[in-house]
């Protein structure tokens, strides 16, 4: 083989060059910079009025599980962005680790730093209850986000979504639309089946359908991931040759559900989603898929939690309420988004 003066063979030079080229090409491919204008300011908000005026500086400690899908990522993003809107809020986030014990350890460090208030989305409500109590005992206000503690005394404020209500809204929407159909086939695509939130949603869905004398004909459970959504749906569509309506619990896995429906070229039914992702809302708006509605479970609750945490520490109430302090518990209502109101909700849609 012909060799260059330094002893490199032509082949190794070629392979090396190709490898370097491929490396450069691939490294360039990791960019996710999106040129489209992405206006998600709708997910955070400061209203005018007395409450917006800067007051005592509030240190907020925040902890939520690591983002494993769009919704939980939106929770953390919203909390950060909302905190940044206030000049009198200092925001410090601690990593929640992989599981409840890791989060407990992280929070113990946070409690030592004595923030004014901790906004906490627990890995597991029951397991973090003692930590919530410890923080309260140390004079730190605790705002419990979404996953409820087993003891109401462990938090100053609980703000959560309504899983049962979400299922109920989906069931009622489908029931109203299918009224008059003889023996309609209603399919349900749940999320991770052993989570209480999935069970609550399914219970609500059952009750909502029952109001119209309907019941679930086929039920499958995915894993809240796109791939699992595609997988269960591909099989579900084989199980039922004709379907009238589908409720899919989660818009993140819904990307896969819609893909499977398209791949099977099925369109005899309509579909209702869950959570309210931006992608789902765009499909509802464009009418390009069977997805014609979604019932919300808004991650904007994190933005609200930050606002309320600030008010609690500053001793202010919610300006439209008569009471001088923030209430003890807030349960968000699950709203039904359809083509007729989707434009109002689009700014609230989170990225999958």
């Amino acid at each position, binding site marked *: 083989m012909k060799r260059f003066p330094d002893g490199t063979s032509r082949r190794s030079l070629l392979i090396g060059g190709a490898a370097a080229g491929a490396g450069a090409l*691939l490294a360039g491919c990791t960019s996710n910079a999106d040129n489209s204008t992405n206006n998600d300011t709708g997910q955070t908000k400061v209203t005018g009025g007395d409450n917006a005026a800067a007051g005592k500086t509030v240190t907020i400690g925040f902890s939520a599980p690591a983002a494993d899908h769009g919704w939980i*990522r939106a929770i953390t993003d919203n909390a950060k962005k909302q905190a940044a809107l206030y000049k009198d809020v200092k925001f410090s986030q601690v990593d929640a680790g992989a599981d409840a014990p890791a989060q407990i350890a992280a929070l113990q460090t946070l409690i030592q730093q004595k923030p004014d208030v901790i906004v906490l989305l627990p890995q597991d409500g029951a397991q973090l209850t003692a930590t919530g109590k410890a923080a309260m005992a140390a004079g730190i206000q605790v705002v419990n986000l979404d996953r409820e503690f087993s003891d109401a005394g462990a938090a100053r404020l609980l703000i959560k979504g309504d899983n049962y209500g979400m299922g109920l809204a989906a069931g009622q929407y489908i029931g109203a639309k299918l009224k008059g159909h003889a023996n309609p086939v209603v399919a349900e695509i749940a999320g991770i*089946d052993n989570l209480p939130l999935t069970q609550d949603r399914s219970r609500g869905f059952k009750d909502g359908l029952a109001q119209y004398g309907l019941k679930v004909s086929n039920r499958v459970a995915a894993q809240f*991931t*796109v791939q699992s959504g595609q997988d269960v749906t591909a099989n579900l569509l*084989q*199980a039922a040759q004709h379907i009238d309506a589908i409720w899919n619990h989660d818009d993140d896995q819904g990307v896969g559900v819609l893909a499977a429906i398209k791949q099977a070229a099925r369109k005899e039914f309509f579909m209702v989603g869950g959570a309210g992702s931006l992608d789902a809302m765009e499909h509802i708006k464009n009418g390009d898929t069977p997805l014609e509605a979604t019932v919300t479970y808004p991650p904007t609750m994190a933005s609200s939690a930050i606002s309320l945490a600030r008010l609690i520490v500053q001793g202010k109430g919610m300006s439209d309420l008569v009471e001088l302090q923030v209430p003890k518990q807030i349960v968000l209502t699950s709203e039904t988004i359809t083509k007729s109101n989707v434009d109002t909700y689009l700014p609230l849609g989170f990225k999958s």
Partner: protein
Amino acid sequence: MIDVASPAAASAKDTGWWRGDGGEPVRRNLGLVGVLVLLYLVGALARPDIFLHGGRLWSNELTVLTQASSIGVITIGMTFVMISGGIDLSVGALLALASVWSTTVATQSYGPGVMILAALVVGAVSGLVNGILISYGRMVPFIATLATMVAARGLAQKISGKLTQIVKVASFNRIAEWRPLGIPLLVIIFVVVAVLAWVLLNRTTFGRRTVAIGGNAEAARLAGINIRRHTLLVYTLSGLCCGVAAVMVTAQATAGSSDHGNLYELNAIAAAIIGGTALTGGRGTIVGSVLGVLVFTQIYNLFIVKNLQTEYQQIAQGVIIVAAVIIQQFRVAALRRPVPPGA
């Protein structure tokens, strides 16, 4: 598949190859076909409207094959690794990394060709990294691929920002929609990969070397096989399979995600094992692995068409794995038994 030179086959003159060592994979594969027939009968009892109706059965089985295709390709790569005496725990994570890398905004802007190329190159290069760690870094395969499993999943999360990267390139998504001659393209890819792998394992020196290294690495080395280089190639091959599967999964899901391929490593190992691939290396067939994948996918399908909860399906999978391993142990015990005089 019949290896006349093997010692067990030497005594096969009286009994025929069927009872000898050479017929073992064939018997096992027929056993798996039997399991598939059994599953079909269960289906026919549970949902006669699907399983006894030609058109619906065809449609259902095409779905089973389509859903089996990506894990099938991964299992084929895993089969090579396991036959060579190794293990690759990183396959699911490599799939996720390749899917994310090929669906970033930047990659998508170059169109479907670059997206496919990116997935294949990322898969192969990651596999190469596994190979380097194991053959030149002298790491135990279990540890090396455990490390790359965690790292690749992490890198996939970093690149995607933990967002689902929806594929806006319609021609790429068509990979999962296109049905030339009524057969889904994904199934065709699966079949082509399986045929190529069968040829590679059974009809090339590469395949014979893989078996030799897994059977007895020291003997293979003394026979002049460059074990390091070969190990490197085997893991690269597994990585390349991950890249191919990443293209398939991404097109099916119409999105890239760091969640893709969750638990694929375990599913692939389980399918290879019930297909007769030995964890200790030196033994395994492509046909067995493909049948192993089909058994699992068919069970999954049966549970959904029968509207049963998935917990039972996981239990059924566990039972099948245990049964397969017990059968394998019986076989090993039978080989160790001294040959009776006059046999």
